[in-house]
């Protein structure tokens, strides 16, 4: 069973994927509770556009995608707060426009063969430098999340109370947006533009079926996410199927199981 990790690309995929799953799961709980579930989807499309442009211009893709997606994250946050456009409508507008730009740039510059791997992810796509970059970013995301954990809880649970007692919600919303943007960018290559948002939403939803405290939701969500990624990766290797979709389906199965368990538990308690 361990022989599959004798391949360099598998080891890279395992390390980067595990860290990304963990980041996505931690942030996912916050985003789902803040009703920002689709922000991941929107940002990943922006990331796709940025990657396509970077590839066409022959610049290192991640270094372009990180700032672009960060800016997009702040814009989305402001748009959904300030403008008359609804948050979900704003996300739809930005995400489809960015996707369109990406597809056109990719086809004009003859990147059609790569398009598939951008959209649906590929574990072969990460180089060594990419992997190091991803690991550093992921560690930063996890560290920042842990340091601000209590404040993030307070701001997510009740923004007005947090503001009234001296915690600045705008600042922590920015931090959450920035961390989400970073997670999306580093996860996009493995999971693909169209599937990365699943990593954010599924583990949080599953954990929320069963757990009653915020801390336990965060912990269970993290464990589930990493578990689903590793099993998805191994399965996809043995059955020779794409990794991203396998991981997504694995997450989906876990959600269904947790949903059924919670329903049964409710019945028993009544």
């Amino acid at each position, binding site marked *: 069973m361990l022989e599959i990790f004798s391949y360099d690309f598998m080891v890279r995929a395992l390390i980067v994927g595990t860290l990304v799953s963990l980041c996505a799961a931690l942030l996912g709980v916050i985003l789902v509770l803040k009703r920002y579930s689709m922000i991941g989807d929107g940002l990943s499309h922006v990331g796709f556009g940025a990657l396509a442009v970077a590839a066409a211009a022959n610049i290192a893709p991640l270094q372009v995608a990180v700032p672009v997606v960060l800016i997009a994250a702040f814009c989305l946050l402001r748009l959904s707060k300030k403008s008359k456009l609804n948050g979900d409508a704003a996300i739809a507008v930005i995400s489809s426009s960015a996707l369109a730009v990406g597809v056109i740039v990719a086809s004009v510059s003859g990147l059609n063969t790569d398009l598939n791997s951008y959209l649906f992810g590929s574990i072969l796509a990460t180089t060594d430098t990419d992997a190091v970059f991803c690991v550093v970013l992921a560690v930063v995301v996890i560290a920042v999340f842990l340091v601000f954990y209590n404040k993030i809880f307070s701001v997510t649970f009740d923004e007005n*109370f947090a503001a009234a*007692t001296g915690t600045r919600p705008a600042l922590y919303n920015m931090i959450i947006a920035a961390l989400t943007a970073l997670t999306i960018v580093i996860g996009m290559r493995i999971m693909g533009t169209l599937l990365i948002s699943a990593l954010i939403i599924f583990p949080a939803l599953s954990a929320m079926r069963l757990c009653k*405290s915020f801390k336990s939701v965060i912990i269970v969500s993290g464990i589930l996410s990493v578990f689903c990624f590793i099993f998805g990766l191994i399965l996809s290797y043995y059955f020779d199927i794409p990794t991203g979709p396998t991981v997504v389906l694995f997450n989906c199965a876990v959600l269904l199981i947790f949903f059924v368990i919670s329903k049964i538990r409710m019945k028993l308690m009544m």
Partner: protein
Amino acid sequence: MSYIKCTDLKMGYEDGVVFENLSFSVNKGDYLCIVGENGSGKSTLMKGLLGLVSPLSGAIEYGDGLEKKGIGYLPQQTDIQSDFPASVYEVVLSGTLSLRKLPFYSKSQKKTAFENMDRVGISDIKNKCFQELSGGQQQRVLLARALCATTKLIILDEPITGLDPLASQELYDLVKTLNKDGITVVMVSHDINSAVTHASHILHLSGESYFYGTTHKYVRSPYGEKFLITDCPCDDCRHQKEVSDNA
């Protein structure tokens, strides 16, 4: 010096002024109820006191050792999501965040949380999930959180909305006890009869004008007479009132 002193306060939003020329103060030990019709600016004023909305003009000053972020706040129930997974302890503990800058909770913060859970009688449900509690229990949890953030003054925004009469009465009694123990109370309320029963001072906002003074004076003022049901509303009594008015 008062805890809070508002002078010629004018507040509003982009689409208009909600109220202006408002002056009043909250002193140590007061129990102030802010009452008034819908849209008269009760919530806006409360947000102003908490520093969530800035006044258009005029001043809100804090004194007597009270800082703006040292105010405990109990929001309206509707501001909190109904499906948020959080334990009672986690919610109460988050009230102590303003006491310390460091990222993790200290022993003294945890002690504060436990003391305040005791104070409002929720220690036995501290591991329960917030969303599974009854309305009255949820308000107690939020009250404990508010108490964690202050030792001086709490602001309550329509705390009995959605509570049954028994739970409302228990909450009023609890707030009264806290007030007797030295916590100054500012309560935004729709329930004018209870306000008059419990509060020491009343601030009645009414569009162009307002009333501010002790409850004693309020009951005898034109504002109080208009809103308090001092006459029985049944047909017989109305008839008798007309008879006595005509006489």
